């Protein structure tokens, strides 16, 4: 995602019409906006919020998968999962750096995540109950992330677009290793196939929710599209994702848990059943199964690491003083 379903960004802005028009002309001409350029306050605020949510999602997203590293079924799987989780940490760092160019500090962003003020993708508030979930996450969750992130490579804000280019290069391995895990299970014993199906049943709908509310209910979508922060609407991306994923499930002999799923010849895509938006908002508002654990774990990591950060700074200071004394 992890930012397509941007939650609650406020693109309101109160610059003069002339200023906004000049800015819009630059955007329409596909010029990139760099951090030191003049920009509407609403544009800046939307980006800080969106890039922040995206960064937090990468970092929190390490937790559900980290849960299985020590229990990976083989060394090959363990090495791949470790590398993937490390990549997600890297993605978080590229994104925090991009947000920092807009004048928000890393400490502020961390603080907002820990206090619950900043959101992250709702998908990471679901538990990883079986090894199959690691496969499903790579296949569906990273798959949805890729759908979303490819258009973000053309985002009008330069640092965000550049971070996305790096991220996209790394994502495709994530999805492929996930699909390979699920394929191995789907082609294995009946119990293994059942495990894969159970996992798909639990993750399908939450994955569709990653794209955010329906266009009709997505308040700030229009402004983000006009500013070319977003290139596609939530529903457009969700449709692309479904159309790409259903044949992949068919190949595995797994059943997508949607009785209303049907190919629509006329639109050249699948029709799907109703998404449970009550569940989506419940999870966004903090009442998913894992919300509390995720924040508790992030806080614990931050607090338990405090002495390391302090010691590193103290050591740096000591070395600096020694160097000056020696000169």
């Amino acid at each position, binding site marked *: 995602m992890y930012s397509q379903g941007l939650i609650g960004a406020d693109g309101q802005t109160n610059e003069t019409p002339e200023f906004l028009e000049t800015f819009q002309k630059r955007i329409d001409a596909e010029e990139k906006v*760099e951090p*030191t*350029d003049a920009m509407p306050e609403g544009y800046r605020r939307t980006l800080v919020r969106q890039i922040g949510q995206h960064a937090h999602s990468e970092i929190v997203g390490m937790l559900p998968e980290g849960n299985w590293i020590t229990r990976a079924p083989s060394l090959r799987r363990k090495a791949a999962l470790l*590398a993937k989780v*490390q*990549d997600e940490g*890297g993605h978080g*760092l*590229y994104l925090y*750096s991009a947000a*920092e160019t807009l004048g928000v*500090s*890393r*400490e502020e962003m961390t603080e907002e995540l820990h206090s619950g003020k900043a959101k992250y993708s709702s998908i990471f508030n679901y538990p990883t109950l079986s090894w199959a979930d690691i496969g499903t996450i790579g296949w569906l969750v990273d798959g949805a992330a890729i759908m979303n992130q490819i258009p973000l490579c053309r985002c009008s804000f330069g640092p965000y677009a550049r*971070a996305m280019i*790096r991220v996209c290069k*790394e994502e495709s391995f994530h999805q492929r290793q996930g699909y390979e895990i699920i394929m191995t299970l789907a082609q294995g014993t009946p119990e293994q196939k059942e495990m894969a199906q159970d996992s798909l049943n639990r993750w399908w709908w939450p994955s569709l929710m990653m794209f955010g509310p329906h266009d009709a209910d997505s308040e700030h979508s229009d402004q983000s599209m006009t500013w070319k922060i977003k290139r596609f609407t939530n529903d457009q991306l969700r449709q692309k994702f479904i159309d790409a994923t259903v044949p992949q499930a068919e190949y595995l002999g797994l059943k997508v848990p949607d009785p209303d799923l049907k190919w629509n010849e006329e639109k050249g895509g699948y029709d799907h059943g109703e998404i449970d938006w009550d569940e989506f908002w419940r999870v966004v508002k903090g009442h998913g199964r894992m919300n509390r654990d995720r924040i508790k774990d992030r806080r614990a990591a931050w607090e338990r690491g*405090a002495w390391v*950060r*302090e010691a*590193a*700074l103290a*050591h*740096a200071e000591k*070395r*600096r003083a020694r160097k000056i004394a020696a000169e």
Partner: protein
Amino acid sequence: MTQSMPLWEVFIRPRNGLAHKHAGSLHAADEVMALQAARDVYTRRGEGNSVWVVPSAAITASDPDQAGENFEPTGDKIYRHPTFYEIPEEVGNM
């Protein structure tokens, strides 16, 4: 934490024969840790064989408000480009 971690800019040389190129930035307590973090964050897939880290605070940048003044004057100096001059074809490549 009372003091915040200094910011570093990271430059990477993709391979010998090419210049170091800006790759991104990161926070680290000192240059030793900055180098280590740069290696982990920016070279996980053979992106380079050499890394520089520079304290962001040590970089002096041109003033964005003076970008016009600084860089626009070159726009109309087309005589600085070879295509401005007409050389007969018989003379050959020049």
